[in-house]
């Protein structure tokens, strides 16, 4: 069952799409959100594209961002692959369900849910990132010799399922020059939130990192750096679960998705490099304000009151 429709894209629109991707990627990297929450409303309200085409394009962009950031984090050895795949069981199922629901329901429902999630994201972005305090992170060693003995002792402890499955780990904090080990607790929180994150990813074309990182950090007591790195790898895999549904159903428009994905990859790279020099907090507040305004527009569109 194919929905045959097409959108007009000329050179000017293609350039505008690249610029949109650049902006979303840069902002995402600096403020610490995925670009999807910017891309989908921009494509729907600004470019007038079909909601499901916008969601599919956003998913392609999310995969590109995740591959770029995920490879950088994996290179730093901070990604906990065991944790990633254990949680991925829940997110991919969520992503698959979200994708199926999305292709079946009307686009205006998606607009409405998107408006609500935008408000939630605005609140989170406004408050800024919370770091530290929650994890069982232990500074175990300052020298290589110590690292050996303590890491083995700590990692060898076995208590619950989380420990039996070796969901904890350790990493070398380059900034502080120390080795940190951590344990994982309350796997069920991670699973529950990951499922919801996957659902929203499939339904709305978001990465869902804004849910997964707090779930891992605050819920499972994973250090924030490991949570962010692991979430980044996971986002791409989750997006693929729903993107497969959109792609096989025919909602992917390469002419729309390609410029956005190209822009976001470059934008995210530039954003990651300029993150230290820019005040993420101020930008976050501005973005929160914009998100609220656009969420209202998106809500109005969903209600059929205004077709912007």
């Amino acid at each position, binding site marked *: 069952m194919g929905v045959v429709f097409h959108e007009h894209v000329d050179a000017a629109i293609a350039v505008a799409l690249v610029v949109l991707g650049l902006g979303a990627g840069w902002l995402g990297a600096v403020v610490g959100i995925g670009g999807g929450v910017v891309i989908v409303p921009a494509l729907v309200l600004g470019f007038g594209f079909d909601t499901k085409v916008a969601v599919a394009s956003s998913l392609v962009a999310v995969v590109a961002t995740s591959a770029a950031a995920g490879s950088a984090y994996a290179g730093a050895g901070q990604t906990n692959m065991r944790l990633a795949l254990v949680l991925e069981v829940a997110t991919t199922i969520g992503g698959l369900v979200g994708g199926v629901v999305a292709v079946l329901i009307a686009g205006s429902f998606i607009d409405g849910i998107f408006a609500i999630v935008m408000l939630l994201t605005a609140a989170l972005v406004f408050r800024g990132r919370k770091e530290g305090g929650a994890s069982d992170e232990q500074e175990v060693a300052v020298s290589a010799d110590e690292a050996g003995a303590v890491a083995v002792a700590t990692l060898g402890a076995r208590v619950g399922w989380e420990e039996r499955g070796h969901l904890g780990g350790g990493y*070398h904090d380059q900034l502080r020059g120390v080795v940190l080990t951590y344990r994982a607790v309350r796997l069920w929180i991670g699973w529950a939130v990951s499922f919801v994150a996957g659902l929203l990813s499939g339904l709305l074309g978001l990465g869902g990192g804004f849910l997964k990182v707090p779930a891992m950090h605050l819920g499972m007591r994973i250090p924030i750096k490991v949570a962010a790195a692991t979430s980044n790898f996971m986002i791409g895999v989750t997006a693929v679960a729903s993107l497969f549904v959109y792609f096989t159903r025919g909602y992917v428009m390469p002419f729309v998705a390609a410029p956005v994905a190209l822009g976001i990859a470059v934008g995210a790279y530039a954003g990651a490099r300029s993150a230290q020099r820019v005040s993420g907090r101020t930008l976050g507040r501005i973005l929160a304000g914009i998100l609220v305004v656009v969420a209202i527009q998106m809500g109005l569109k969903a209600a059929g009151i205004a077709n912007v």
Partner: protein
Amino acid sequence: MSEHPPRGHGDPGGDDLGRETERVLDLRADPRTNTVVKWVLRTGLLVALVLLLVGLVLQLVGGNQHAVEVKMFDLLAPRPLGERVMAVGVLVLTLTPASGVLAVLFSWARERDRLYVGVGCVVVAVLAASVVVGLG
């Protein structure tokens, strides 16, 4: 924190500690898997981006102004060259994280880590199911 001065990339002490940590954590965690995944993701992304860029340029040079939807198993249907190249780019991009999962899976299989091979297989099965469900 003050008694441990920050160490940068170039500092041999930091690197030694990093390597030692990797060796120790190798018992449980998987730095080797991390490295393999890094290269899988990086290569896939790079190939995909080149295809997307080349396709986009071809499409614009060809003066085609229609964006149409392309189905995953419909890539061979007649369509403008630029669009086809971009569609293959999207496909490569889509397969990149999935390949990352497969790389992790193989790495665990080599270590005979049955529990995690099982976990990885479930994830791959869900991904395969999403293709089947989309087609259905």
